[in-house]
């Protein structure tokens, strides 16, 4: 069939019409020798993006039966979607249309009308040539599985499960230990700003057990995973065998660990010393109701040492200052006579209720001592003050706030899930600020302290955020529509070098061992084209941005 290309230039009121000689375009283009083989209709219109303009265009496409469409108008960032919408009302596939930006790239930046017109003609010729090389692309609709696998039964995992579970969505909660609840359920109490505190955590744990749509796997772990957003296949390994699960999304809530204080050069103590980590104190209090020394006495003086291992790890653990103030309160509640000194290097109290808690404890006699350096040997502390003066003191008890580190299974999980780990050792989010709960793989989310050191409040927010993403994107009974402009593999050219697998941050490419070629998962691919740049054999094609298509634009640019 002979191609019939419609070319419409928009006057954009005076914006284009006064700076570009549109009539000359109307004369020049049809007269060009190179378009002998095709039928070309070139017209101008006042304002194509107006309601009238869109109707006009729709009618023109229908009545002329165009095979391709080129618009000389504004930036595709402004109105590409508008005109794709117009195409969709006709039989013209929207990928056989192209908008050429003769406003921002000609009319508005080239003061000389003749030059601007020449430039516009050049761009339009590139556009006409390009559309002739474009191919129809069609949206696909894929069924999804609304179920969700949650890895980790701490507070973040629990909150995720509770936010998502329902009649149309089953949740599979995988916990490596023998019970759910995580570290927060080992605490003696929570912060004053944390509502009803521990009771809420216990309530949530009970709700999980009572929810018929949440299946808990205890003493279990992830064995394998394949698939992609909407269609993951997971094998869960438990004591009594493996279970196959199908799910649409995976939420990683694998929690955190604490650094061993003895790994830091500044800290040394032996088992017989009255030196404890914060978590040990929480457990001691929960179990015995009192904080006591190893000899069974109430300590008369206690040093609370912040930031243990912070320098080594290279980040602030965010929650320690607050819980150390909470531990000071435990001590003061136990007996006002206990002398409590907090050694810190600047307090981090990033929530609005924190400062008043700090102030209240300072008023109750807790000494907050800001220092530059500290070394601890058993219950002996030596330090350098802010003004550089040295000091030392001996205490009955020392409580350490060890840096929060990723849980032990982070690396193995990352490997299984094929999601990256950041240089701090925690899972790497998709984007630091604008997409913190997603990972590089669509459909896999990371929440709670597996993402970064965070307390219960923020863990719950992260869990709800992942739930928000899943609730709005994996709707039971609805299909998902993947991006159309993705990369495809031309198997005949693929040498199987697998370069493309390494550069794809989305994990969209896999390797087919039997055929010896790369395979692109069109659901996961975002169409950036990075893999294309890495392919030594030209076996990839970035749909709608193929080299032959781009060459058409280039050819006119350097004519």
């Amino acid at each position, binding site marked *: 069939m002979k191609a019939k290309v419609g070319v419409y230039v928009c006057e954009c009121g005076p914006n284009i019409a006064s700076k570009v000689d549109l009539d000359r375009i109307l004369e020049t283009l049809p007269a060009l020798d190179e378009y002998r083989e095709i039928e070309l209709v070139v017209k101008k219109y006042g304002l194509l993006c107006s309601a009238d303009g869109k109707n006009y265009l729709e009618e023109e496409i229908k009545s002329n039966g165009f095979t391709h469409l080129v618009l000389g108008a504004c930036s595709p960032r402004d109105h590409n979607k508008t005109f794709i919408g117009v195409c969709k009302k006709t039989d013209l596939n929207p990928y056989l249309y192209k908008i050429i930006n003769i406003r921002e790239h000609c009319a508005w930046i080239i003061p000389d009308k003749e030059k601007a017109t020449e430039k516009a003609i050049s761009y339009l010729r590139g556009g006409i040539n390009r559309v002739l090389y474009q191919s129809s692309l069609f949206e696909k609709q894929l069924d999804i599985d609304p179920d969700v696998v949650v890895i980790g039964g701490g507070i973040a995992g629990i909150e995720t499960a509770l936010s998502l579970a329902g009649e*149309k969505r089953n949740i599979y909660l995988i916990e490596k230990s023998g019970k759910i609840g995580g570290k927060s359920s080992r605490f003696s109490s929570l912060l004053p700003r944390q509502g009803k505190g521990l009771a809420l955590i216990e309530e949530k744990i009970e709700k999980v057990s009572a929810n018929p749509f949440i299946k808990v796997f205890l003493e279990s772990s992830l064995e394998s995973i394949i698939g992609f957003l909407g269609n993951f296949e997971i094998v869960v390994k438990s004591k009594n065998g493996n279970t196959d699960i199908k799910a649409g999304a995976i939420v990683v809530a694998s929690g955190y660990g604490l650094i061993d204080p003895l790994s830091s050069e500044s800290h040394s103590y032996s088992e017989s010393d009255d030196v404890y980590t914060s978590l040990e104190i929480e457990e001691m209090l929960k179990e015995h109701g009192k904080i006591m020394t190893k000899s069974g006495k109430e300590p008369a003086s206690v040093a609370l040492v912040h930031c243990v291992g912070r320098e080594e790890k290279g980040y602030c653990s965010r929650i320690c200052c607050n819980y150390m103030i909470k531990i000071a309160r435990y001590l003061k509640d136990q007996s006002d006579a206990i002398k409590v000194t907090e050694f810190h290097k600047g307090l981090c109290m*990033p929530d*609005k209720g924190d*400062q008043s808690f700090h102030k209240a404890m300072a008023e109750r006699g807790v000494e907050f001592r800001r220092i530059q350096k500290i070394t601890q040997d058993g219950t002996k502390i030596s330090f350098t003050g802010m003004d550089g003066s040295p000091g030392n003191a001996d205490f009955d008890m020392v409580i350490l706030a060890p840096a929060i580190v990723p849980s032990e299974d982070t690396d193995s999980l990352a490997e299984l899930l094929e999601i990256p780990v950041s240089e701090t050792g925690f899972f790497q989010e998709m984007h630091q600020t604008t997409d913190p709960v997603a990972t590089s793989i669509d459909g896999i989310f990371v929440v709670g302290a597996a993402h970064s*050191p965070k307390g219960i409040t923020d863990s719950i927010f992260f869990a709800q*955020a992942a739930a928000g993403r899943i609730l709005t994107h994996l709707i039971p009974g609805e299909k998902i529509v993947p991006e159309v402009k993705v990369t495809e593999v031309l198997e005949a050219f693929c040498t199987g070098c697998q370069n493309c697998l390494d550069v794809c941050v989305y994990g969209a490419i896999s390797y087919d061992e039997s055929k010896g070629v790369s395979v692109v998962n069109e659901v996961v691919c975002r169409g950036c084209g990075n893999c294309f740049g890495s392919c030594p054999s030209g076996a990839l094609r970035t749909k709608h941005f193929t080299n032959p298509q781009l060459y058409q634009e280039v050819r006119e640019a350097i004519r």
Partner: protein
Amino acid sequence: MTEDYITMNRSDNVLIIGAGLAGMKAGLLLAHAGKKVYLVESLPLIGGKVIKNEESFPNLECSTCMVAPVQQDVLQNPNIETLTHSAVEKIEGEAGNFRAVIKKSARYVSMTDCIGCGMCFDPCPVSLKNAWEEDLGERKAIYVPCAGALPNVPVIDPDQCLQLNGQQECSACADSCMFGAIKLDDKDETIEVDIGAVIISTGAETFDASKLPELGYGKYPGVYTPFEFERLFASNGPTLGELTIRDSEKTPGKIAIIHCVGRQQVGYCSSVCCMYSLKFAHFIKSKLPDAEIFNIHSDICLPDKNYQKFFNKVKESDTTLIYSPSPEESKVSQNGSGLKVVYTGADGKEQHVEADMVILSGAVIPHPEGSSVATIAGLNLDSYGFFEAGKDDIGSVHTSREGVFVAGSAEGPKDIQSSVIQAESAAGQVMICLGEVNR
């Protein structure tokens, strides 16, 4: 709680108040799920505070690059009705069945006819300070707040427009518009919409530094607020990013950045000021490598896994860190042609540095719009003036009224990450609130 809702006659629409990053992100998620979203914004543009920053910490990413695609998605999404230059006047009813009254202030420029060419600016005879540019730049009575504003449709300031304030007959802008888009007879419009749930994302402001007169804000041209400095630095700002001291051509040689301004007054740490203050030091050094920079700080708050790395980098190469137990009690005074900052040192004694420019890193405070929304919607604020969320709960976006949620710094000071997290959380809670279809 949600199980008790009656499913008849409920509305599936969502009202979002405030089109900053939190409001936009929540809106996009809900629109994706097929909800009709009314996104109401008091300013004539969407994008919120983030787009005032050239680059955002900790990765110093170009904010426009980060946010412009989000803005475009919002404006082009058929499920989102963006109502800029508008305010919610009433919210009645209950979760699932609210009725909201929204006042759309006259823009005097047609959103459908205007193509954003900007031809109307030059003919306008009125020039005045541009508040969006923190008064550092000028605009006309018909204006867009900044180049690249979205939606790219100007607005007329009726108090300043000669025609509209009755000072004289003028139709210069209307005459210059080839699209007939300027409607000088435009009127305020009130619409009523049925909605099922509300998200409040009215954002925050920074502490009014003039409340601490010793810091010299408003008295000395060299003293800046954080957003003034952001706009001064921005390549699309009033000086195209050239760092010159207000009302002069002078490039500063010494700059003091005072942390924690207003912290004692507001009663909380704002969690973002340390990072943006360090970012400022880095900004200045990148443009003025010979500048001497002092960050006068107390506690350094770096509450994210990636913040300390940034701190270490800035500490090493960009600034001199000066510890003061109470930086906000510093005193700024004239010193020859420059300024002098007197502060309390680590030893408790008075120290000072000389500076040509002083940046006051102000605390994050509730946006004034928040309290009026709270009154209209009958919502509780906490003792600091932020929206109270989940009173007895932990990590909740539920306000004191069922079906009304809060996201972003309307709930308390937040970095961008935490705002986005709360927005996504609120979107999820709205989905749950609106019905069980999804679960």
